[in-house]
Structures are given as structure tokens and as C-alpha cells.
């Protein structure tokens, strides 16, 4: 590939690059809490469950479209059902959001009165979601093409409307976390003390997991399972290894995610690769660099 071709590729994929960077930055920000709260497995499980939602949408999409095609021009209420199905058929993220929020409600339940530890419920959710994803994809019309889309996303095909939708969800998540930073920090660091000072710990935990679930569900369709999970883990780890203050950790985590996403996308274009592997590779190199910085102190 010539330099001119490469630059042309970057220009043509500008929306995809911006989308990748947005996904990476938001996942990295929330990933700091995911790592600090020691709920990495929740992140993995939610990502897998969200993927199962996408896979379910791939499976039922053609059926929804076919029902919509037959009913949309009929009499009410069938026409309304047709419009609704037509809308859903091309928006797998809606199915993913519903499935992910269902999992969030289950995972965020307070631990008292549970027959099983939370880790067991999360593990069961992960295993079931993995099995269902496989089943849905095998039975879906496109098969292996869907597997690749599920793992690596479709960020290359991101349109302006998709980008605005991503941006709106991520801006809402950023606003919630920006406004209520001290509540999320206090409840994450010392839930018992926070409760003794009148904080509704269960509600703040639920709000955190709702923002996490929304981010994962929206991000996974575009960036894929691998990138989303990697961006929740590697940049946060980089921030925590490199910095000793919360502000620094957030800044380094988000910055390293942005660099990883941009460089990863460029390398994918250059070497004609899926976007996830070079993104994850770049992030891993930055994490190694953070360890070197720490060792050199």
C-alpha cells in the first residue's frame, strides 16, 4: 500500500476512526472502576451477554423483517407492529440493550439472601451467553460472517447517524460520571462508610452497572467483543500502573485507549487486518511501557 492509498483509507474511514476512539475512551474510563472494584469478570460476562443479544438480533432480524414486510401496509394495529418490527430488524443494539440491562438487574442485586455467591451467577450468565451466542449465530442466515462481526464489530462501516448515536450514549455516561464522581468513588472505595453517611449504596451501584451495561451494549455492536473487553481492561491497567492519583489514572487510561484505537485502526488499514488485534496489541505495548515507567521510578 502506498502512502497515498493509506492516507486515502484514513480519510474514507474517518467516521470509523472517530467511533473507535469514542468507544475506547468510554470503555477505558469505566474500566478504571471495573478494575478498582474488582469486577472484571462482571465486565467480561456483560460483554458476552451483550454479544448474545446481538447474535439473537442477527437470528431474528430476517424474521422480523419478513413479518414487517407482510404487515406494514395492513390495517392497524398490524401496520404499527410492522413499523415496530422493521425498526427493530435493523437495530440489533436494541435487543442487546434489553438483554444486557436484564443481566445488570440480576448482577447488581444486593448479596443478602442469595442462594449462590454473585460470582457463580456471573459465571452462569457468561457460560449461557456464550452457548446461546454460538447457537444463534449457527442458526442465523449469515453464519460465519456474523461471528466475525460479533468479535470484531463493524466499526469500518460506521455511518454519521451511528456516530451521533454512539456519541449521545457516551456523552450521557460521561455526564453521569462527571457529575457524580464523588458518589461513585466513595461507594466503590468504602460502601459501608458511605451507607453510614446516608448514601443509597445499592442505587449508586445499580446506576454504575446501568452505565456500564449501556456502554458495553452500544459499543459491542460497533467495536466487537474483543475490542470492548480489551479497552475496559488494558488502558485501566496502564493508568493504574503508571499513576498514583485518581485523576492521573483516568487521564492515562483514556489517553492510552485513544492512542490504541487510533494506531490500531491505522495498522489495520495498513496491513489489511481486522481492527481488534492491532488495537489490543498497541494497548498491550502501552501497558508494558507503563510498567517500565514504574520500574524506572
Amino acid at each position, binding site marked *: 500500500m502506498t502512502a497515498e492509498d493509506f492516507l486515502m483509507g484514513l480519510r474514507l474511514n474517518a467516521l470509523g476512526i472517530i467511533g473507535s476512539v469514542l468507544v475506547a475512551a468510554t470503555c477505558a474510563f469505566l474500566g478504571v472502576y471495573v*478494575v*478498582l472494584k*474488582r469486577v472484571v469478570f462482571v465486565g467480561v460476562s456483560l460483554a458476552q451477554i451483550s454479544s448474545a443479544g446481538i447474535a439473537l438480533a442477527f437470528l431474528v432480524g430476517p424474521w422480523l423483517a419478513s413479518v414487517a414486510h407482510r404487515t406494514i401496509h395492513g390495517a392497524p394495529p398490524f401496520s404499527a407492529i410492522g413499523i415496530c418490527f422493521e425498526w427493530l430488524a435493523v437495530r440489533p443494539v436494541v435487543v442487546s440493550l434489553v438483554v444486557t440491562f436484564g443481566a445488570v438487574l440480576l448482577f447488581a442485586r444486593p448479596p*443478602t*439472601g442469595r442462594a449462590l455467591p454473585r460470582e457463580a451467577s456471573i459465571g452462569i450468565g457468561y457460560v449461557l451467553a456464550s452457548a446461546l451466542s454460538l447457537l444463534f449465530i449457527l442458526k442465523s442466515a449469515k453464519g460465519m460472517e456474523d461471528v466475525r462481526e460479533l468479535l470484531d464489530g463493524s466499526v469500518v462501516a460506521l455511518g454519521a447517524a451511528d456516530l451521533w448515536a454512539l456519541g449521545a450514549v457516551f456523552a450521557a455516561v460521561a455526564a453521569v460520571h462527571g*457529575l*457524580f464522581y*464523588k*458518589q461513585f*468513588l*466513595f461507594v*466503590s*472505595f*468504602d460502601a*459501608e*462508610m458511605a*451507607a*453510614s*453517611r*446516608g*448514601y443509597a449504596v445499592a442505587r449508586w451501584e445499580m446506576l454504575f452497572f446501568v452505565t456500564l451495561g449501556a456502554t458495553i451494549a452500544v459499543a459491542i455492536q460497533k467495536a466487537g467483543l474483543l475490542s470492548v473487553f480489551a479497552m475496559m481492561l488494558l488502558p485501566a491497567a496502564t493508568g*493504574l500502573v503508571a*499513576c*498514583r*492519583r*485518581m485523576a*492521573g*489514572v483516568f487521564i492515562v487510561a483514556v489517553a492510552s485507549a485513544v492512542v490504541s484505537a487510533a494506531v490500531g485502526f491505522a495498522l489495520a488499514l495498513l496491513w489489511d487486518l481486522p481492527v481488534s488485534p492491532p488495537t489490543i496489541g498497541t494497548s498491550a505495548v502501552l501497558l508494558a511501557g507503563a510498567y517500565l515507567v514504574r520500574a524506572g521510578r
Partner: protein
Amino acid sequence: MEPLIRLADAALGYGKVRVLDGVTLEVYAGDYLGIVGPNGSGKTTLLKAILGLIRPLAGSVQIPSSEHIIGYIPQRDTLDTIFPLTVLDIVLMGLFDTLSPIGRPARRHIARAEQALEAAGIADLRDRHFGSLSGGQKQRTIIARALVADPKVLLLDEPTNGMDLPGETGILSLIRSLHDERNLTVLLVSHLLNTVINHARRIAFVANGRVETLDRSEVIASSKLSDIYGMDVEVTRHDHRYLVLPAANEGGQPA
């Protein structure tokens, strides 16, 4: 005088499970109450009821209406040192509920936090990472976090657990001086009677689902301790300090 905290014939527990029954306890301003009992006896349940984190299953629990009156000091080991927080960051958390929901600590809040650090004897550790501190320094940090809100009552959960002798002595002396100089009411939870017997005026024993409160003089003089612990126990005095030991037989071994 009205008690600050009053539990009247309270049953405490979770769901339908009663951990403690018939709990009657009054805490007055200026009290120094030790809450002692073996692990799993229900001390934490009693503590949660006093903090208002659980409601009584029966009877009543009256606690101060203002959230700022009780300064809760949890066990330091429950705090995760992976968080990149300095001592000042943690002390400022004690003021979070006095800020507006989206407010941030201002210069005056930092000044208050510095005063609390001074009172806890760790002003020089202000910018140190919490994870790099010794057990005693961590305990002083969370005491400072409680002090910053200017509480009337300090409720400490096993503050010297797992500490070496200098650390334990330092923390108990700090609590004593806060009690004496600021007239703070102190509720000190411990599974070791020796930790509290030389400091607390009264001791609430938590065992077998019940809570029994005795004045220190009663603890020292009576045979109640043997009944509570289900073994022969003696209290000896050495250099103006009391020590609780299992009663020894003629060979000097525990009876």
C-alpha cells in the same frame, strides 16, 4: 440526661434470622463503651443497628437524627489499597455528604481535612498513598476521616485488630485523648477484652445472642466474666493496668 443512643428490647438480625435478642442499651454523651464478644457473636450486627444500616426486627433503636453525629471507623482491612488515593483524598470523603450532589471539595474543606489530620497525629502523611502506610497510619487516616465531620460519637470497629504492640498502644492512646480532650463519646468494638478493659468505663458483652452491659468495676470485681466466657477467668492488676487471663491451676497452666 437523655441518652444519645437507646436500644430498648431490640431484636436484631437479617430477614427472619435473629442474631441478637432483647438488646437493651443506652449510650450517653461522654460515655466510653467497649463492645466485646467473640468472632461471630453479633458485634457487627449491633454496630449496624447503631449506625442505622439495619432496622430492628422487634423493639426499638433510637439513634441521633443527624447523620453527622456518629463518626464511623470501619476495620481498615476492608479498604482496598489498590485505589490510587492519598491520605487527604480519603479524609475528604468524610465531608462528601456535606457537599451538594455535584459539588467538589473547596479550599475550606481541605483546611478542615488538614485539621483532622493534625488531630489524628498524621499531618505529615497528607500526600502519602494510602496503600503505602503502616496499619497504625491507615487506622489514623480513617479516624481522621471520621473526625473531619466533627462527630459527637466515634464508633470504632476492631481498630487495633492485627496491630503490633506500639501500633495498638498508639491508637488506643489517640482514642483516649480524643475522648478526654474533645469529650467525644466512644463506642469501641473488639473481640479482645484486654483491648478495652483499661479504657472503657462500661463494657457491653455480646455473646449467645444477648448483650449484657457492665460497669468496669463490675467486670473487674465479679464472677460474671467466667459466666460470660464459660470458663474460669481472673482479672489481675499490674502497674495500674488490668489484665484478663484464664484462671491458672497450681502448675501455672490454664485451668
